């Protein structure tokens, strides 16, 4: 469903954001993008919604050629791909209900239909009683739920979550990830950027590791994770990615064994 081929992003300053990324993500997958700050996780997500263009390489989402996508089609792409932004990007002068309503208004949904969808989403993320509150009145975890509800408003096939547990305590972070897992179980492809390895370890989903813009691991591939030559590797995180890959592979082997039996 999502296909990145030899994708490189070099910023205007000369800094390499991503280097030669090759990645395939199937429909309905839940993928963790892990890596330290500045490893290229957010850049990768930005490329998927054409917020930025790669310097070289091809990106396909289904039939959409993201690199060659005409300007006028970008809004259409962004209606198909929901995003939970790292800084949430909620409108502080609008109520929770109005924030969730925004994508529906942008898409031109009829008022009653949109209002019903907002109620549905608020219920789905467990925020029905906060509909008339303003963002400033909510906690971090609640705001994340609102951001998730807004991202789901147009029932996207793909949901990109950029550090959705970044500033949350452990219990709340797991609540949010549970919610995302539930959404994924309904068939939505989820790519979640995180550096919270506890969550990554617990959930046994596919893990793609990034370091200094390079892919340093992918638990889906049978081959060894790509080695990075960067001098400032975050060794702990890399080890965690490898561990996660091992866990994942072991689990997969067990499952395959059971299936054969």
């Amino acid at each position, binding site marked *: 469903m999502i296909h990145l081929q030899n994708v490189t992003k070099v910023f205007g300053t000369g800094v390499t954001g991503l280097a030669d990324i090759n990645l395939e993500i199937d429909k309905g997958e839940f993928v963790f993008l892990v890596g330290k700050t500045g490893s290229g996780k957010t850049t990768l997500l930005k490329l998927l*919604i054409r*917020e930025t263009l790669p310097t070289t390489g091809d990106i396909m989402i289904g039939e959409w050629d993201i690199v060659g996508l005409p300007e006028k089609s970008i*809004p259409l792409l*962004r*209606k198909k791909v929901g995003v939970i932004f790292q800084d949430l990007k909620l*409108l502080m002068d609008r109520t929770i209900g109005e924030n969730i309503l*925004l*994508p529906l208004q*942008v898409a031109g949904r009829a008022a009653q239909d949109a209002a019903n969808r907002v109620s549905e989403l608020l219920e789905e993320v467990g925020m029905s009683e906060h509909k008339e509150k303003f963002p400033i009145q909510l906690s971090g975890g609640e705001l994340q739920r609102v951001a998730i509800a807004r991202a789901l408003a147009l029932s996207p096939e793909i949901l990109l979550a950029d550090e959705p547990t970044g500033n949350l305590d452990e219990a709340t972070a797991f609540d949010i990830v549970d919610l995302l897992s539930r959404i994924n179980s309904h068939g939505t492809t989820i790519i979640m950027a995180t550096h919270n390895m506890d969550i990554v370890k617990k959930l046994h989903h596919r893990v793609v590791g990034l370091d200094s813009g390079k892919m340093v691991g992918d638990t889906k591939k049978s081959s060894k994770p790509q080695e990075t030559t960067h001098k400032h590797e975050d060794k702990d995180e890399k080890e965690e990615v490898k561990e996660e890959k091992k866990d994942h592979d072991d689990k997969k082997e067990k499952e395959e064994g059971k299936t054969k039996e």
Partner: protein
Amino acid sequence: MWNHIRRSPYQALAAILIMMLTFLAVSVFTILIIGSSKVITYFESKPQVTAFFRDDAKQDVIEGLKTDLAATGKVSSMKFVSKDDALKIYREQNKNDPLLLELVTADVLPSSLEISANNLQDLPDLSVYLKNNPAVQEVVYQKDVVAALTTWTNAIRIIGILLIGLLSLVSIFIMSIIIGMKISHKKDEIEIMQLIGATKWYISNPFVMEGIFYGMVGAFVGWFVASGVLLAATPLLETFLRGIPVVPVPWWFYLALLAGELVLAVILGIFSSILAVMRYIK
């Protein structure tokens, strides 16, 4: 759009005031240009050369002169005013002053020939031609009045067009700066809307509507003030322009002026807001 206006009322007021100023100038100069054109038309339609005959001028000489003048092709119309006709006109003009009426008889007043030329430039030639005729005692023509009015009207027209052009330009810049400030103020909201799939038109539309709104309100207020002043000054103008059919201004003129100004306001509003949108929304 209403939220945009409500949240920054002083900017909205500034935009409306500059538009009002522009359209006040548009109204005033339109009224002046159309009014002075009507005054010129009035004077042009009046006899432009009047030849007063000597008391002993023979009727056949006068008839010969008329035939000769018609043959020049420069005359659009001629009217002979006999001594009796002149007395009637004199009595009509001074009917409220019996003393003046008592002193004057038909013998005192000369007969005359009132001539309108096809072209104002032919007036000097016609005047010279008439003066050379022995039956003519005196020639009076309104070349100077019409020429002075034409000069004034042209000056008003040029000043009006320049002032309206300048004010329109200032309005466009000020409006685009005000709308640009509003766009900058909503930068985060616009970025979010773009990221969740809003089209450029969806984002720009409220700002364009806002520009149109400022333009239309400004135009209406400008028109209202100018029309009010004109209506209030109508009795004074009627006295000043006695006999010249310029005032009272017909009601349809006010409506046509308003309609024209609203169309111009929409164009200015769209132009200035699109200028701001193009500059600030990428």
